């Protein structure tokens, strides 16, 4: 491991943390344009975080320490996850210690802290949100694992950088198995990041919320961290998608650190396209009835299994 690898490693995490709010700002801009509205500033999420960090935190009297530490844990977990996703380069020192399955575990840990904190104060909305979040989670996780298994079957490894290396060095274009999993992955991404059609991040209706209901009791810096963590999660998911399906532009081992010169703008372009694509999906769809979310994620799981079967039957 050279010093340049460590620099890449640190750069990836810092870039993810720094750019995640801009990604959400871009997504919101695209949504506004598609709805014929004048768009808010790209920097609005940053201003919002800035505002929240300066406010005085109000915490319910009966909140336990868990409620206070959860935002830090959730934010930390998402930051760590950013470190093991090869968004710019594949030569990452941290990768040896965590593969894609550990990554799913990291997301699960964040979810656990988040739902526990949501139930901590004991309001009806927090519990309701936590309940729905667990329903989404237990259906989304297997689908995500299936997607990862398809990719790891192809490259014979569960480490994301290895998968990325393999795909980046191979032919351009998706294998049929991966194409199925890519669709499955998009469904999981929408569900896991509380986007329409599964959840509505813009709603003010408490009774319909999932993610928002869980953070209703948070304020100031805690809320800022929770929101930042959610933005980071979206960033991470999109980068996982790139790593598995569109690794082009990533600085691979044989290109070396020079590749970063290409990788950084390539990532920015890919993120912009993905954000615009998400905005299109969100604008075109309506929110599903909560009771139909299992169908939605069941479809994702089925597609991922189909991807696996197609891969096994067709061979590589």
């Amino acid at each position: 491991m050279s010093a340049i690898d460590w620099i890449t490693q640190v750069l990836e995490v810092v870039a993810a943390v720094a750019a995640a709010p801009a990604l959400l700002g871009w997504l919101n801009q695209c949504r506004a344009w598609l709805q014929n509205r004048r768009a808010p500033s790209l920097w609005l999420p940053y201003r919002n975080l800035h505002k929240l960090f300066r406010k005085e935190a109000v915490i319910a009297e009966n909140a336990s320490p868990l409620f206070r530490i959860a935002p830090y844990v959730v934010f930390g977990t998402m930051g760590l996850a950013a470190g093991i996703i090869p968004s710019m380069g594949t030569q990452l020192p941290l990768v040896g210690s965590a593969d894609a399955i550990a990554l799913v575990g990291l997301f699960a840990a964040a979810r656990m802290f988040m739902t526990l904190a949501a139930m901590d104060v004991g309001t009806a909305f927090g519990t309701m949100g936590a309940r729905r979040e667990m329903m989404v989670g237990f259906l989304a996780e297997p689908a995500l694992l299936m997607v990862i298994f398809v990719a790891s079957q192809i490259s014979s490894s569960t480490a994301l950088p290895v998968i990325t290396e393999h795909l980046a060095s191979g032919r351009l274009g998706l294998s049929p198995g991966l194409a199925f999993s890519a669709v499955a992955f998009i469904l999981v991404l929408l569900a896991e990041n509380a986007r329409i059609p599964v959840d509505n991040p813009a709603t003010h209706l408490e009774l319909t919320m999932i993610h928002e209901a869980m953070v209703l009791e948070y304020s100031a810096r805690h809320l800022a961290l929770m929101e930042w963590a959610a933005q980071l999660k979206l960033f991470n998911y999109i980068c996982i998608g790139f790593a598995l399906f569109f690794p082009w532009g990533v600085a691979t081992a044989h290109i070396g650190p020079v590749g970063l010169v290409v990788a950084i703008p390539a990532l920015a372009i890919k993120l912009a396209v993905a954000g615009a694509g998400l905005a299109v999906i969100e604008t075109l769809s309506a929110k599903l009835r909560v009771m139909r979310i299992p169908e939605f994620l069941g479809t994702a799981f089925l597609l991922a299994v189909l991807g696996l079967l197609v891969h096994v039957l067709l061979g590589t």
Partner: protein
Amino acid sequence: MPLRRWWDRAQPVTGAPHVRGLGVGTEDWLQVARDVAAAGGVLHALWMSCAAMGDHAVQERIVYGAYLTDTGVLIVELTLPAAATQTYPGLEGIFPAAARMQRAAHDLSGIRSSDPDARPWLNHDRPYEFVRVDGEGVHEIAVGPVHAGTIEPGHFRFSVVGEKVLKLEERLGYTHKGLEQRFTALPILQGHRLAARVSGDSAVAYSWAYCQALEGMSGRAIPPRAAWLRAVCLELERLANHLGDLGALGNDVGFAFGLTQFSRLKEDLLRAMAAVFGERYLFDIIVPGGVAIDVSAAAAGALADVVRAVCTETEELRDIYDEHEGVRDRFTGAGRLEPERAARLGVIGLVGRASGQARDVRVDLPDAPYTELPVAMVVEHDGDVASRVAVRFGEVRESGRLLTSLLSALPDGMHAVEVGVPADGAFGVGLIEGWRGPVLVALQAGPSGSIRRCHPHDPSWQNWPALEYAIMGNIVPDFPLINKSFNLSYSGVDL
């Protein structure tokens, strides 16, 4: 005794051709209600008048019931003896909607009905017990009165198993502001201004109903041009509210495109209204004797153009709503209020018409200009959110058609006349089909141009209890959508 006999016995109310008043004793009070119910009529309003109200000492205590029947509006007066502990026979068994009106009347006057539910309604100082639902896994979700959005305050208590709603109980009255008392402190010729503010989204309907009652008492007919212009205002109000609701309903199913488009159309309309009348929401345009502002031919033409453009675009958006699978899936079957239940609960107005209750004052008991411009009533029979959306789309089209006709054929003449002060004790009733349903104003004059008693009545009284039934068996996250599809007034019933 069939309803016809009561109707024949009742006295006509001056200046209100569709209204008759009937004084009854305690023994006939229930019988009239039964006969009205048997003839397919509904209880529209129930209120009290007694010494405790206003500065004017009224010796008797009178319970008023207003029934909407096929022949007209029957106002039944039950005069109670002076004994303080007296109760009057409750109507809940015949008209379920009476329960809350009786409880509200009790809070305001201290006189109880004989019905079992003695809990307060408007008075929040007295203790209140919600109905508990017992059973394995049943828990309660308390929502409000303060909500996350900028909406009126109301408390909703859900008893749920998982996501399924077993029971909803509403608790309103958070915006009680003593409106009826406030009326008694106003000159009768100024009351229309307060009436317009009972429920701000129905400013035209309330102020017209108030003026109709006042003009009837004074025996002063308004000129045709004034009636035409009032109808223009009423249809504009209907159009603006329906557009706002259609957008909000889209937003509530996560279809923000609908909200932005309908908000734009509503804004276009409101700006056109402001250009012509100087008010976006038409407060204080309807005044005793006519309308406050005359409309020039050029302004009428410009307004008609905007209305036509808005209606054309609404048709396009209707196609999008109808063909969008996700939106259709959320609307269809949600919050179903079956026609039989709607009839039993006496549901009226827009919500009633979406559940097969074909009642519209503009059609059933028309006044000028609706006598000359027949309205095509929009009725749906499924009673779900989709039906209430369809009724709104249908009424946008119909109001657009009416507005085009009204604006192209405004009669010549004066737009307002002077209205004199009515005699002490004179009684008048106004009934106007607002966008939400029929709005009733009962007005009694006091000495030298004062108001003895004024009761503004919103159709939401009937329809709030129906919402509790519509949500049963649905899932919790569908409640905001179902609630929005009813879009009832809080201020209008909290008084």
